């Protein structure tokens, strides 16, 4: 009767809630998997025959090119900034994270606006210098342009993770290499790259997931990828069944990528870690090399943040009356409301699941964290497909059993909030899990031995000790939701606009100046959060 005892003593409110949450997260994914194997229709045959190859080709080109380039840009900047002292270095430490505040789709239409025929570069050349340029060289709406946009706005993922690793974990090895007389290039290629491989790969996988998730950039620049294809078949052809098949295919590809990453790392999964945290002391650069390092960092910062930001501010000054319109206020209100609700739910769920899985042994406790990450690996459009089919299914069931008089769930804000939760649970989860890891389990155990049950221990002890991590997780989820585009476009109720959809809609309608105000609001809120995070929280 051992197993009955085991189940009984492991069943508490945390376990039950965790199981319920995990099932909720799995449902939309399962609904795709089930319908993936349904009978294909004519559209699907057509898509597979003529279009699928293009989608796969374009998506792969983007993934590979953006992955490689952002690895180079991110890791080289991380190395320069960890190891050397040069003008403005301390600012760049967090300044180079700021490009993350600009969602790539906003960057995309901003750069198009800067470079096109009526943009600031070409008009200046024409009016001041009388030069009319060949449009062929001033076109950004193509594959290289798309790659450029993704790299400059997403490289900070690689930069931050690699920098954190280099600054803390590699000090003795790099100092040794310096003492042995290796030159900087040699240290970079022979030591930094191989050592930091795990962190670089981790950063690049985040970049790749973002690229596959993106709808805004590729739609605006007219590149056919999986995500645009899902939108097109669903809303252009009205064919949900084929959209499900595309989604399932994309899920398989991502699964393949994730497995490939595991296999590639294989046994080389070592990461040189010591518990002794010794900060790497930067070496003062002199002469030419000082200015080379400075110019490199400055150029990247200018291209990835300052230039698009200034352009947006200029456009915003042309349309600032918008600020005072009721429309914008209601859009801001909507955005903050859904983001607050969803981020709160996400934080609560992340706390429950991570507390459960750290206090219990066994397979379920080990599997649950993996499931929370699922939503973050799957592109928004795919999640949207899963959730819509799920909710319509439930609505149909309730309608047929005359529980409701119309389709309630699939037309409500509830569906959008649920989608945010599925997609961004991992963001808060990671932060909270690392908070729990830092405090370990001995405080909780001490509290339990002193007579408090798991729940009381959580509120009296654990919660107080990981407040920072919980707040951090909440903010990260909030910001991600604020910027989210594809899910919101598909799942929002009729006439419901957020800052992100507002900006994207204006830009798509070639009302680029009007798109500036909502864009700037998104960027400023995100930038404040980033500053807060990497400047205030990291010091603690």
């Amino acid at each position, binding site marked *: *009767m*051992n197993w009955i005892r*085991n189940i009984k003593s492991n069943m508490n409110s945390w376990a039950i809630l965790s199981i319920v949450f995990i099932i909720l997260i799995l449902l939309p994914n399962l609904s795709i998997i089930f319908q993936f194997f349904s009978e294909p229709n004519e559209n699907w045959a057509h898509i597979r025959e003529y279009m699928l190859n293009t989608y796969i080709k374009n998506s792969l080109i983007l993934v590979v090119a953006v992955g490689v380039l952002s690895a180079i840009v991110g890791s080289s900047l991380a190395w320069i900034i960890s190891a050397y002292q040069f003008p403005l270095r301390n600012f760049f430490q967090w300044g180079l994270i700021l490009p993350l505040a600009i969602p790539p789709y906003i960057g995309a239409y901003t750069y198009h606006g800067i470079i096109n025929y009526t943009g600031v570069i070409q008009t200046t050349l024409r009016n001041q210098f009388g030069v009319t340029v060949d449009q062929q060289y001033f076109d950004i709406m193509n594959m290289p342009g798309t790659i450029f946009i993704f790299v400059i706005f997403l490289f900070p993922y690689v930069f931050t993770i690699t920098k954190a690793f280099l600054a803390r974990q590699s000090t003795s090895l790099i100092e040794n290499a310096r003492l042995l007389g290796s030159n900087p290039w040699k240290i970079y290629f022979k030591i930094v790259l191989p050592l930091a491989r795990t962190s670089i790969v981790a950063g690049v996988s985040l970049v790749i997931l973002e690229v596959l998730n993106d709808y805004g950039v590729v739609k605006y620049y007219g590149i056919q990828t999986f995500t645009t294809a899902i939108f097109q078949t669903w809303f252009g052809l009205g064919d949900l069944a084929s959209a499900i098949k595309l989604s399932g295919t994309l899920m398989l590809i991502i699964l393949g990528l994730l497995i490939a990453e595991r296999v590639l790392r294989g046994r080389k999964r070592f990461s040189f870690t010591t518990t002794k945290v010794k900060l790497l002391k930067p070496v003062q650069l002199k002469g030419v090399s000082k200015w080379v390092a400075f110019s490199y960092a400055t150029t990247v910062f200018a291209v990835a943040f300052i230039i698009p930001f200034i352009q947006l501010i200029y456009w915003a000054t042309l349309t600032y009356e918008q600020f005072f319109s009721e429309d914008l206020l209601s859009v801001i209100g909507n955005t903050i409301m859904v983001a607050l609700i969803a981020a709160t739910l996400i934080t609560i769920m992340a706390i429950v699941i991570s507390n459960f899985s750290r206090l219990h042994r066994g397979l379920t406790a080990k599997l649950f964290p993996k499931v929370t990450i699922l939503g973050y690996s799957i592109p928004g459009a795919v999640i949207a497909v899963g959730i819509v089919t799920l909710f319509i299914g439930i609505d149909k069931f309730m309608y047929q059993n005359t529980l409701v008089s119309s389709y309630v769930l699939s037309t409500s804000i509830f569906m959008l909030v649920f989608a945010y939760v599925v997609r961004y649970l991992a963001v808060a989860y990671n932060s909270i899990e690392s908070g729990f890891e830092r405090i370990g389990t001995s405080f909780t155990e001490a*509290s339990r*031995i*002193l*007579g408090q049950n798991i729940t009381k221990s959580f509120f009296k002890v654990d919660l107080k000790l990981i407040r920072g991590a919980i707040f951090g997780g909440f903010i990260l989820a909030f910001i991600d939701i604020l910027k989210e585009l594809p899910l919101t476009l598909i799942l929002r109720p009729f006439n419901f606009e957020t800052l992100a959809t507002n900006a994207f809609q204006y830009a798509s309608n070639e009302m680029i100046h009007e798109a500036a105000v909502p864009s700037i609001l998104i960027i400023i809120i995100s930038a404040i959060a980033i500053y807060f995070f990497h400047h205030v929280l990291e010091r603690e």
Partner: protein
Amino acid sequence: MFVHIRDLQYRYSNSDHLTINKFNLTINKGEITTILGESGSGKSTLLRLIAGLEMPSKGNIMVGDDCMCSQSKFVQPERRGIGMVFQDYALFPHMTVSENIKFGLVKWSRKDKKARLQEVLELVNLEGYEKRYPYELSGGQQQRVALARALAPKPKLLLFDEPFSNLDADLQIKIREELRKILKTTGVTSIFVTHDQEDAQALADRIVILRGGEVSQNGTPEEIFGTDCDISDRIAVKPRVLSRT
């Protein structure tokens, strides 16, 4: 017999050998038992099993007249009435000394809590430290707070996980003596886990030597180490770093 452990068995889920195997032990009321073993012998796991922090795959644990664990029953750690002093003390960093000590006095009245606080503080010689936070205390003081906190709810059984491993050598000897005195005054039944033979000899009424998760010897210190060798000799012979910071 106050504590009675029969046929205890434990296996970590990711391991294929038994961490604890066929473990039997009986302890009389008020006795101080030391479980001596090298790292990896399973001694800490044993303590966690008794505390209820791990669930055994087999075996029974009785404390007093209560069954803590059997094939059909498992009492959660918060309901066992067992105290524990952790290796790293696990003092709650966000609470003062008095809050830490009062933490386990669930359902006591305010007045009783206050009286008990003074009582245990006196016992461990820390009167006047109520308002301090753990980080404001030295290692030795932290350990006493941990002891006071564990003693405060009047546990039936008190467990110590390598209690001296974080202390300097000379402090260790002093505290060891003190601790034995305190435990004998309160008459609490206790189990120590250690890898240090001297600790075991100095403290224990009974020593259990654990090897590979099984009992290899069980007896009084004299029965196990003989009487020919004085404890203080051993301490003098064994080279040790005697720096105190």
